């Protein structure tokens, strides 16, 4: 995933056991990198991409569920989050077959999970920590997505600073936060619907129960820009359904996840 992941476990327990748990969690992230990167020929995503326009590729249930969820977010976000690189000229650009657990890409379409893989890997790592009884931990990928488990010793929540998204910090407890940034130059991020570069300087953050969702939606909000704040729309309904809260420069800070 081309970035650094870090993990802090603050539990006051047997450090030998905690180290083993931490290694297991980071091992999961390493595995997901190997499965989800499109830049290594041995990954599952590269295998799917090689079949574009040729044949369906069978994948495991875990990956199928991730792809299905990515497509759901694509629809909910009005196309502003998209794992498909290339044109979606036809409705079957990305075809998922749950019965046979296969994915088929139309010719010219490639998958790139760069806007969701980090959050997804963090979710899996956090579930390893929780499964082994960890009650206080913070883990992040590239500082743009973070998951808080419980609170730091003696505190009520982990305080995460989000420069450019208002003063103070976001209080995070048993929740995830992702931030996305269009950068200081026009052209760093493009709108997947039009391939047009979006305005520079726009930032967005999202909190919620799943880093997979916050990672994907932070990207979508940067593309949606100010229109994301429109009440009563598809985006608001998706946020309510997924338990998400937006942190946009013009909006009031949401301090509780």
């Amino acid at each position, binding site marked *: 995933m081309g970035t650094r992941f870090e993990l802090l476990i603050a539990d006051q327990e047997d450090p*030998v056991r905690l180290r083993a748990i931490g*290694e297991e969690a980071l091992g999961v992230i390493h595995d997901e990198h190997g499965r989800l990167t499109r830049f290594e020929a041995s990954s599952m995503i590269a295998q799917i991409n090689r079949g574009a326009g040729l044949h369906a590729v069978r994948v*495991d*249930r875990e990956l199928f569920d991730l792809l299905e969820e990515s497509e759901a977010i694509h629809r909910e976000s009005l196309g502003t989050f998209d794992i498909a690189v290339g044109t979606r000229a036809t409705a079957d650009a990305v075809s998922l077959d749950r019965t046979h657990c296969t994915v088929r890409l139309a010719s010219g379409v490639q998958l790139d999970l760069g806007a969701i893989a980090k959050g997804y890997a963090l979710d899996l790592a956090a579930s390893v920590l929780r499964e082994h*009884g960890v009650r206080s931990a913070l883990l992040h990928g590239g500082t743009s997505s973070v998951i808080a488990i419980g609170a730091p010793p003696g505190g009520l929540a982990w305080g995460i600073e989000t420069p450019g998204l208002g003063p103070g910090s976001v209080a995070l407890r048993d929740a995830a936060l992702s931030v996305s940034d269009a950068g200081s130059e026009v052209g760093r991020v493009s709108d997947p619907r039009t391939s047009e570069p979006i305005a520079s300087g726009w930032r967005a953050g999202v909190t919620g129960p799943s880093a997979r969702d916050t990672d994907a939606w932070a990207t979508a909000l940067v593309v949606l820009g100010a229109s994301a704040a429109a009440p009563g729309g598809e985006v608001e309904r998706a946020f309510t359904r997924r338990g998400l809260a937006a942190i946009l420069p013009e909006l009031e800070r949401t301090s509780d996840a």
Partner: protein
Amino acid sequence: MLEHDRREFLVRSAGGLAAMALLPELGLARMPSPRADLRVGVVGVGRHGRDVLAEIAKIEGATITAIADTDERRLASGLRRTSGAEGFADVGSLISAGLTDAIVIATPTHTHREVAEEAFASGQHVYVEAPLAATLTDCKAIAASARSATGVIAAGLQGRANPVYQLARTFFRSDSVRDLVAMRGQRHQKTSWRTPASDPARERALNWVLDPEVSLGLAGEWGTHQFDVFNWYVGRYPVKVRGNGSIRLHKDGREIADTIACTLTLDDGAELQYSATLANSYEGMYEVLYGTNAAIKLGWSHGWMFKEADAPTQGWEVYANRQQFHKDEGITLIAGATKLAEQGKLKQGIGLPFSSLYYALGDWLAAASEGSEAACSCDEAARATAVGIAANRAVVTGEEISVEM
């Protein structure tokens, strides 16, 4: 000729010339593609078993149809890594279900014999992970059973199916390296080597590699894979081994050394120096064979040759891809150089695109569908494991140990 064209010409020439010397042996690098569809079961889906699931999923013509594990959590997690396999608690139930043509055994080393004998008896194709077993008695028993099995049997010593290792071996066996001077190998990785258990009752079973009653330690569990590379290249086996070990980092009550060093001696006096540690990751895992004309360094996904100044030039090296290592310059050994050059992808082909495990499993599945022999037999795995067992014994006792087999 434009500069760009000239470079392209040189790259293509390098690929073509190099391949003239290498193509005969490259034929041994069987690419994973079974001719017939094979239904595969995996017994043991811990961390390594999950790696097995991931690699088989990439092999066209192979489908994971069943998995087995005694741990319910691991079984459930493993099933999520398949596209619809059935789960079982043990190998017997998996075999009885009749869902598989081939079985991978990825259980703890000391359990291999019981599982392997049951799998061999079923008539299915079987891949047994290495080390082959934790005792010489079990190694010999597995090797004997494998010889009378009707399916295609392979042992998981991955170097023998690795295209880079196959290619480099052609150089070693030719005049490029000349007479063997010495050998060195290491595996350095910073890890506790401990598996967390959510259920304390499972703690010991899951951490069998740290249990001195059943574990072969770093020399056996890791070293065996690398000792086999030297066995295969040199065609001879160590006859005695000295070793020592200590706990340098993980002072957590364990008895298994986290850092070891061994000296293995061949019958002609040549020596192999081997070190392994869980306390430092510098330079990772590699093997080096030093000859009077050149040294060959093998890094699992990459291979290099370092020629001596007085070694004869064979022509193709002039244009070969090179890599600097401090004051030494290594010639990169590239599998499939001609094909890559034709496609203009010679640069991308420097490292293997897939893991060694992928090639080993693919070789076995291809052999199974053809009815031919796999790259590594249980007899060879038993020999390599015997070296690993002796090396571990030398580390534990601090005494010189003779290698039996």
